């Protein structure tokens, strides 16, 4: 394993220390428990947006802490969900009294740990809400799986919901917007190479010189299927069509009732895309694929969307939600309405994404 790291046990901590010295104007890093938070937190009167997950997806989430996006991010070990004490301490640090929204990617580990954290925060009298991001169309059903994984839409949600929080949305409004963004977004990813978890020291899976994995998550896990290498156009068309033609998706999610102080379940169904929809298109590198290749993908994606009657009105192209040094990419399409576009265009100033600031 060749990486720019020192001792394996220090990888995440040292990367966070580097962020702290690089961006003191944007963020601070707290250790034991570990969380990254806005330099100016808590922001008076503002609902705090907090996310987190395993490390190895940089710039997400820590790179999105700052004006217009996250108030705090909780990094776990590489590809391992953070722990409830991190989330709970982060929430306490950034809560202005207006409440805290946890944006949670749907992985069993993240969900169980954030649920525990929400219970702890609520017990402390913090108004809290958790919204799940589960947008990965490679996962077909929710009955026989842990449900769709949270992937590309997470980045778009952190930008859009973060801007709405900045604009003064209250906790309920923010939760509604976050839920909508999640239901409007769909993603799919593919891998050209595996990646090496530092603590493991070798690739999580082996891919042949002519093989690729389709329908991967963001943890270096094998995908939904393994196929022979194809052209960028073929790969892009196949993935774009699976996203665009994805039927309605239903699942039961748990959200927190602040009055009753307990979880309740609600059934959510995502509507499929329709001709005439305007979309934000996000072409993401898994980390090792250079941006130039993403433009070849975007070129085809634009054609496929046009053929299907979708109009791309905004785009994001680059490495934003990654799997260490994995080569590959993911495509996310997010149905855009006026509310979403307004907050997409709003300023953001973070280490990983800057808009109008």
């Amino acid at each position: 394993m060749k990486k720019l790291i020192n001792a394996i046990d220090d990888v995440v901590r040292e990367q966070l220390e580097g962020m702290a010295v690089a961006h003191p104007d944007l963020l601070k890093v707290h250790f034991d428990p570990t969380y990254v938070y806005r330099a100016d937190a808590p922001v008076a009167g503002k609902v705090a947006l907090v996310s987190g997950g395993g490390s190895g997806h940089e710039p997400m989430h820590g790179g999105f802490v700052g004006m217009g996006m996250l108030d705090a991010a909780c990094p776990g070990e590489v590809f391992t969900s953070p722990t409830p004490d991190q989330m709970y301490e982060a929430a306490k640090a950034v809560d202005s009294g207006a409440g805290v929204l946890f944006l949670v990617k749907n992985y069993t580990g993240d969900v169980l740990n954030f649920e525990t954290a929400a219970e702890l925060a609520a017990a402390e009298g913090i108004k809290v809400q958790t919204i799940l991001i589960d947008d990965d169309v490679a996962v077909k059903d929710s009955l026989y799986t842990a449900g769709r994984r949270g992937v590309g839409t997470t980045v778009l949600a952190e930008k859009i919901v973060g801007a709405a929080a900045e604009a003064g949305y209250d906790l309920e409004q923010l939760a509604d917007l976050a839920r909508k963004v999640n239901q409007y977004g769909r993603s799919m990813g593919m891998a050209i190479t595996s990646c090496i978890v530092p603590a493991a020291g070798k690739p999580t899976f082996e891919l042949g010189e002519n093989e690729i994995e389709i329908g991967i998550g963001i943890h270096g896990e094998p995908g939904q299927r393994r196929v022979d290498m194809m052209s960028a156009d073929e790969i892009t068309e196949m993935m774009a069509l699976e996203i665009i033609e994805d039927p309605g998706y239903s699942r039961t999610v748990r959200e927190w009732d602040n009055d009753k102080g307990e979880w309740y379940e609600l059934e959510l169904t995502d509507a499929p895309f329709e001709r005439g929809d305007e979309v934000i298109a996000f072409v993401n590198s898994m980390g090792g694929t250079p941006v130039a290749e993403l433009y070849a993908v975007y070129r085809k994606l634009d054609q496929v969307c046009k053929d299907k009657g979708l109009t791309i009105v905004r785009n994001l192209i680059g490495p934003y939600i990654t799997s260490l040094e994995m080569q590959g990419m993911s495509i996310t399409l997010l149905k855009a309405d006026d509310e979403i576009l307004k907050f997409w265009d709003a300023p953001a100033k973070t280490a990983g994404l800057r808009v109008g600031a």
Partner: protein
Amino acid sequence: MTTRDEIVTWLEKLAEVLTENKEYLTQLDAAIGDADHGINMKRGIDRVMEKLPTVADKDIGNILKTTGMTLISSVGGASGPLYGTFFMRGGMAAAAKEELSAEDLLEVLQAGLDGIVQRGRAQPGDKTMVDAWLPALAAYRAELDNGGDAVAALRAAVAGAEQGMKETIPLQARKGRASYLGARSIGHQDPGATSSYLLLKALLDTLEAS
């Protein structure tokens, strides 16, 4: 009677076992997960070993609760809150106890399993750690009903856990990361079921040794 010292020895034994099996559990997780289960468990049990001296002289409930809280705040992943809940609930069941009868021990383990199921909402056959625990505790109870003592019951439990663990191999995962592989999860042994088996085995070895 299972004493407080045996509980402490059990946890120390578990630390050894998880250290020895760190690679193995991680490899199992690499096949159908994200290659970190052994690393997660090792990180957690190491923290427990740091904490243990500060509570080793307290009652069993206290020791188990501390173990659970430590795992929750150090393991992460799916297994963290699950094993954490297991020990916290077990600790509540053993509140203020200095030693455990064979029945007490069953109550502790059952309370722990109930916690795992409440948090994770896994069904039998979902290819999770639950599939090791269910047959294990059933066998324990059966042996107890046949008049067996704690060691005999645990021996049955470990056999049940081992069988449950092996029977996860043909299953298609419906919970956790492995469920994303669909049919590709078939043919691999579940890492969490394996660590649960190791956990029970460590307890048996401890009681047999004394």
